[in-house]
């Protein structure tokens, strides 16, 4: 049994933590939060590219480091701890993973090296309005290789160079790569719960669309892509949840009420113990999903769903209770609690809500159980 990061992976993770402590203190996060014109921190993005993280899991032949997915998970965990304000998930977990798993050789050669070099930011454009998107409700369409329609909201859509778009083609859903710099695209920046991540409305009017994967398979493909992304997002969520617990612990150990530190009161101690338990459940599920992602195991859909559900739950609980432990201070703009509270909501919704994943998990279990 070897169910933990290896020494090399731990080293990478420690280095990532040190790097982010220096390059992504909360002042950097706040720089994006407080500036409506900024949708991400360009300096941090460049620095992260220089570290090789954008291409960590991209093969060397395409300009990456050629490491495994577990290494990418270790990086994701640290990015989550730091609530890094960069379009890393959209670019790396979604676009790069999608192209590596489903792209043609030409698509790989055109896209992956640019991602690894930090020259191409990606985004995933599926939603068209409130609620869940279904094949029959899908409005965006591709005719003669040209895309028309509106996608809202698109996380990192205002920063992105390329979108992965779900659209109808001849009455069947497909996934398309769209170069957002090539014309036929209007980008409107929108306000969101988590301003440390950009969000946009993308309006397509004859933009060139290049299909990814098989025709008519858009929904299945999107799900396969989200399965991969969900694992990496779960590590970001886990990192965030761990940091919330740490912040709450540190605060509780320094704050006095009724002549004692509040950390001595059992209501607070048990809250922190509950956070710890949830975080450990999330960590164990995330490790299993990391393994499944790394070796492309058939268990990936269930493992990813379990990791996502556990991590969403842990981060939500830790982020809300961390505000509570901080009392009035926790409700202020100046204390970092709300950065995590915001990010916890952003990460829970960006790849399908936990409710959807629970449904997906149980459907998978039904299939397995029936077989």
């Amino acid at each position, binding site marked *: *049994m*070897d*169910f*933990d*990061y290896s020494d090399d992976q731990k080293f990478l993770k420690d280095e990532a933590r040190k790097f982010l402590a220096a390059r992504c203190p909360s002042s950097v996060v706040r720089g994006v939060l407080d500036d409506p014109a900024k949708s991400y921190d360009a300096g941090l993005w460049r620095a992260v590219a220089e570290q090789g993280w954008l291409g960590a899991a991209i093969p060397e032949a395409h300009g990456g480091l050629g490491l495994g997915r*577990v290494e990418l998970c270790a990086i994701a965990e640290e990015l989550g701890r730091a609530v890094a304000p960069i379009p890393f998930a959209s670019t790396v977990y979604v676009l790069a993973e999608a192209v590596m798993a489903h792209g043609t050789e030409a698509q790989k050669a055109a896209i992956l090296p640019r991602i690894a070099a930090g020259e191409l930011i990606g985004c995933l454009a599926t939603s068209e309005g409130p609620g869940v998107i279904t094949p029959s409700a899908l409005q965006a369409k591709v005719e003669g290789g040209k895309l028309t329609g509106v996608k809202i909201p698109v996380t990192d859509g205002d920063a992105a160079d390329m979108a992965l778009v779900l659209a109808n083609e001849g009455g069947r859903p497909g996934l398309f790569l769209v170069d957002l710099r090539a014309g036929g695209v209007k980008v409107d920046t929108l306000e969101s719960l988590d301003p440390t991540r950009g969000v946009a409305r993308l309006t397509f009017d004859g933009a060139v669309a290049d299909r990814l994967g098989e025709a008519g398979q858009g929904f299945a493909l999107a799900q396969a892509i989200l399965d991969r992304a969900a694992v990496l997002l779960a590590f970001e969520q886990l990192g965030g949840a761990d940091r919330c*617990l740490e912040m709450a*612990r540190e605060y*509780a*150990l320094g704050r006095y009420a009724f002549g*004692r*530190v509040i*950390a*001595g009161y*059992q209501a*607070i*101690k*048990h809250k*922190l*113990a*509950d956070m*710890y*338990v949830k975080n*450990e*459940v*999330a*960590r*164990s*599920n995330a*490790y*299993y999903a*990391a*393994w499944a992602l*790394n070796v492309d195991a058939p268990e990936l859909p269930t493992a990813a*769903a*379990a990791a996502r*559900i*556990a991590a969403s*739950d842990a981060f939500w609980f830790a982020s809300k209770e961390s505000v509570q432990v901080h009392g009035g201070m926790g409700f202020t703009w100046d204390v970092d609690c709300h950065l995590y509270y915001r990010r916890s909501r952003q990460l829970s919704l960006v790849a399908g809500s936990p*409710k959807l*994943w*629970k*449904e997906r*998990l*149980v459907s998978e*279990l*039904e299939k397995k*159980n029936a077989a």
Partner: protein
Amino acid sequence: MDFNDSPEEAAYREKARAWLVENAAAHRVEHGEPKPTTPEHMAAAKAWQARKAAAGYACITWPAAIGGGGGTPIQSVIFSQEEAKAGVSYGYFTIGLGMCVPTVMAFGDDATKQRFVSPAVKGEEIWCQLFSEPAGGSDVAALRTRAVRDGDGPDADWVINGQKVWTTGAHYCDYGIVLVRTDPDVPKHKGLTMFWIDMRDPAVECRPIHQMSGGRDFNEVYFTDLRVKDSQRLGAVGDGWKVALVTLMNERLAVGGSAGPDYRQVMELARGLPGVNGPALKDQAFRENLADWYVNSQGLKFTRFRTMTALSRGQTPGPESSIGKIISANQLQDLANTAVEALGEYGILTDPSLAPMEAAFQQSLMWAPGLRIAGGTDEILKNIIAERVLGLPGDVRADKDVAFKDMPTGR
């Protein structure tokens, strides 16, 4: 990240499995909770323990010289996994071998160890742990059972009077370790001493307690002028708390895994049950619960894998293993309850011949409350996580520095 055994681990597992295939069948007896503590069940358990001991599969981590297996912690985990799969794990020896005998080994003199360790390993003698009292469960150190010396010499006997309660197995055990008060004039933790005792002594009276689950696994135990030799003392006079902590630390490792139905069985049940709209399995609320249990039970399983990894890397798992019982006990209770509710009015039936899965859900529903209390309540385990893992301060102690006899007790 690799779930496979290392080559050495795989070889050990293979060997253990082959041995189990060869030996287990003859020792399999129906079990569950409430435990059928019939003479046949006990005899089967003892025979199985003896066979394991002879083959080096009992107390695997203990030195071979004292009857153990001379193996590693990871080997012990591997064997338990295979043994559970083979359907031959019995509960009778957990408390003795997991907690009492290790305490005897740590604090007994050579003659005591010589006398007791090997028979316990072979399953010839069973031990119980007599800590809890009506006045002290979570707060064990508040116990009132007294031991006073009869005479003045350094070897003078002790005479014990008082009552223990919730003692698992006392009615079938041969020996026990008992924590008693030897000095009421000092603060509660300082006046305790530990002894081993003979449970068959006429001065020990055992009254089985009828549990809410219907079983009779634990007991009230009364001592009336029970005379023990000073050589039965484990640790120094007044040092009983330190000795008890060693026992309790082992308890957290020994207690944990919960037997009982898991999400798979509930799912199977719901597939065939009529729900509000079609099978109960299609009920949205039910599906969400199912997802949560799956996530929790996987979380627990993989947390154990992480513990195993620590063991295979030569590390010792610490107080963080307390999360196991918190999750599993609560989950068992919730899961059993939802399954029983899904049965509708029929869910109240406990007749094994009528209820699905021989009424295992109903049994678990009635057993789970005990699991949340035994071996440390949820609340105490959360305190352990908060204090020992997260480093938060201990609770306020109203009884600190107060002589035991002056301590507020509520009655």
